């Protein structure tokens, strides 16, 4: 099953989802499709005007274009997702630090779709790490 991960660029979540036999939907895959497309120039012009329009499906016109641009990438991933894992209480430098509003909007989109959802907490010690992996394993095995 396709599992969306939050933060969408997380190595830990990507690896664990793949390790336990599912397909992680990550930001890197979406970015990879864009940056290797010869029609798109180098950053910061890697979000096109069309992307900002696509973002309108996920956020209103009054929402800043930066959020809509990001949602043009993340939104279609949420649409494809069949389940989601969200990591909370992580340090500030963990995940996409560019825009917290986009993070909130994505979490709202996930909850609105009523996908099977697992909320885990960033581990600070060995016990918490064991609980994190055990919960993710249990959740992913339950999806099969």
């Amino acid at each position, binding site marked *: 099953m396709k599992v969306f991960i939050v933060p969408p660029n997380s190595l*830990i979540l990507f690896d664990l989802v793949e390790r336990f036999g599912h397909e992680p939907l990550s930001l890197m895959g979406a970015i*990879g499709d864009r940056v290797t497309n010869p029609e798109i120039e180098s950053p910061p012009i890697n979000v096109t005007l069309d992307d900002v329009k696509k973002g309108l499906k996920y956020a209103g016109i009054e929402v800043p274009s930066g959020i809509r641009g990001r949602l043009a990438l993340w939104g279609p991933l949420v649409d494809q997702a069949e389940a989601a894992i969200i990591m909370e209480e992580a340090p500030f430098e963990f995940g996409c630090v560019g825009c917290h509003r986009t993070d909130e909007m994505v979490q709202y989109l996930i909850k609105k779709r009523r996908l099977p959802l697992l909320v885990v907490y960033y581990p600070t010690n060995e016990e918490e*790490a064991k609980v994190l992996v055990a919960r993710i394993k249990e959740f992913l095995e339950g999806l099969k």
Partner: protein
Amino acid sequence: MPKDRETRMIVIAPSSAVTPDQVTRLIHGMSMEITIKETCYGAMIEGAHENVMKALEAARKLDPDRIFSKVRGFPIGDARRCRAHHGSRPGFTQLEKEWECLSLIEKGVCAARLGQKVCQRPRPKKIPVEQLRKIADEVSK
């Protein structure tokens, strides 16, 4: 880059005895049509999806619980990201943070593989608003 091509990062947990050099040499020795770059955290590999997964599987066998991987958006040596071309590296803080955390995660992966039972303690609750107000009032007096 064609659709079936993929770039992957292989990240070795800090607690592992495997070195990036070992991973790189192993993949080189497989003589597959993939590009390999040794890095401080492990290696980057790029090629056809099938070959990349084969190489990853072989690398994982060196230390299954301590070798992690994820897809990378930009190709190896891309001038927009590669430091050799003075590219920016905005994802590095994230990678550094997660690399530090891998020494904890590998304990979890190991416990899950061995089927160990873990006890989940209830998380501390947030302070009620009334209590917080009391504390604030005491301080502001």
